[in-house]
């Protein structure tokens, strides 16, 4: 087990975005999170990665309580995330984008150069090394965002709707990269995704969030057949393909 949330709740004023979310992510797996818009998926990510602190509950990463830690501290412990709206450092080169991750997240000193080169090579980004991040297309931007996270040397990578806006071919290519990161690097991956087919395809286990609460966790097939999931998320008569 690499990450565990215990009864995590988050309220914004009177709106309860998360209600008693219990989730355990096992080391080395690809764990998918799905649910309708506004179900609290991104809030869950923000709470885990330290952008917000939860109203109540506890978050444990590799046995350490990270509930109250700041975003940068959590990163130093080995957890990195991407954003739904692609974020890179547009005025920096791809290399320097990775350097931010490696310098501040990784704190590795001499190994820095090697780590960046390796990560670039691993994600087939070496040819973009000196390109300015603002000049990249959407797909490459997303890869660079992920590469900067990997350059921190994280053991848990959280991807927030990484497939949004990509074409079918790009989606498949991206999923291959995610599998490679998971298999090759042994990095645990947590994905939020709206495109259900792809999520089912890539995940080892899945969780469905609805109105801020967990309604089902399990292997993708089980989850898709769960009557409650069909009722609130997939809808009646909807085949999950």
């Amino acid at each position: 087990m690499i990450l565990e949330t215990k009864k995590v709740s988050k309220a914004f004023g009177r709106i309860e975005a998360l209600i008693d979310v219990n989730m355990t992510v096992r080391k080395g797996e690809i764990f998918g999170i799905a649910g309708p818009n506004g179900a609290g998926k991104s809030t869950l990510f923000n709470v885990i990665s330290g952008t917000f602190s939860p109203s109540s509950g506890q978050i444990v990463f590799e046995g350490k309580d990270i509930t109250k830690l700041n975003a940068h501290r959590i990163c130093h412990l080995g957890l990195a995330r991407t954003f739904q709206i692609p974020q890179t450092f547009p005025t920096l080169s791809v290399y320097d984008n990775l350097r931010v991750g490696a310098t501040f997240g990784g704190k590795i000193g001499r190994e820095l150069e090697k780590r960046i080169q390796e990560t670039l090579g691993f994600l087939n980004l070496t040819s973009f090394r000196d390109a300015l991040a603002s000049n990249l297309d959407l797909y490459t931007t997303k890869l660079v965002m992920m590469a900067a996270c990997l350059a921190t040397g994280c053991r848990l990578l959280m991807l927030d709707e990484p497939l949004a806006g990509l074409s079918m071919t790009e989606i498949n290519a991206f999923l291959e990269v995610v599998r490679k990161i998971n298999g090759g690097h042994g990095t645990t991956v947590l994905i939020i995704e709206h495109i259900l087919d792809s999520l089912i395809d890539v995940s080892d286990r899945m969780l469905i969030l609805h109105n801020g609460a967990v309604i089902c966790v399990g292997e993708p097939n089980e989850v898709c057949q769960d009557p409650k999931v069909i009722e609130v998320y997939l809808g009646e008569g909807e085949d999950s393909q």
Partner: protein
Amino acid sequence: MNDKYATATTALDIQKVDSFYGELQVLRKASLKLHEGEVVALFGPNGHGKSTLLKVISGIHPAVSGSIKYMGAEIAKTSSQKIVELGIAYIPEARNLFPDMTVLENLRLGAYNRRARGMVGENLEYVFALFPHLEERKDQIAITLSGGESRMLAVSRGLMSGASLLLIDEPSIGLSPITKKTVFGAIEKIKNETDITVLIVEQEVDNALKLAERVYLLKRGQVFLEKVADEISKAEIEKAYF
């Protein structure tokens, strides 16, 4: 069906609109047409330009090229405040309420444009009839409203402008099933009781499909499918997404 459109006046005519965010082209020669009084749904995957199209129509985001005609007049380069005065109201997904003002103040500001100022009274009445719940909360500060209440307020504020064309962006986002029902019920009432033309962008196909008379599909900035709502199923639409 076709006969109906032959006689109806065109309310909004969009031809080959291009729009950018920085370097990124979001709309590519997008074209669509609305007839007076009809409800049209615009579907498409996330991030493919649906919301941008609404922003472009309402003058919040610039169109780089192409033409947008409202009731025959070109509005592609018109400022957002003129467009509101012409009778187009945009109800954003992000709601964009005035957080430190009361519900009533928010509604009054909805009628800021010159044409609507005289009709504040009647429009308020109509809005409160549509959402009685809002009337109970009229002195509450907007930031303390729940998600559903703020959505109702956003829709109501749009109606306060006395618009004849409503552009509604993802009204169901983040709502509980019951609130969704209220919001869609209200849009249905607008459809049945008034001549207001409605263009609605939705992620959840079900509700919008029931409401709409026609459907457009937008993908990678391009409108690539137009159908009468009865002739297309949810599965077909979703299949076209991917």
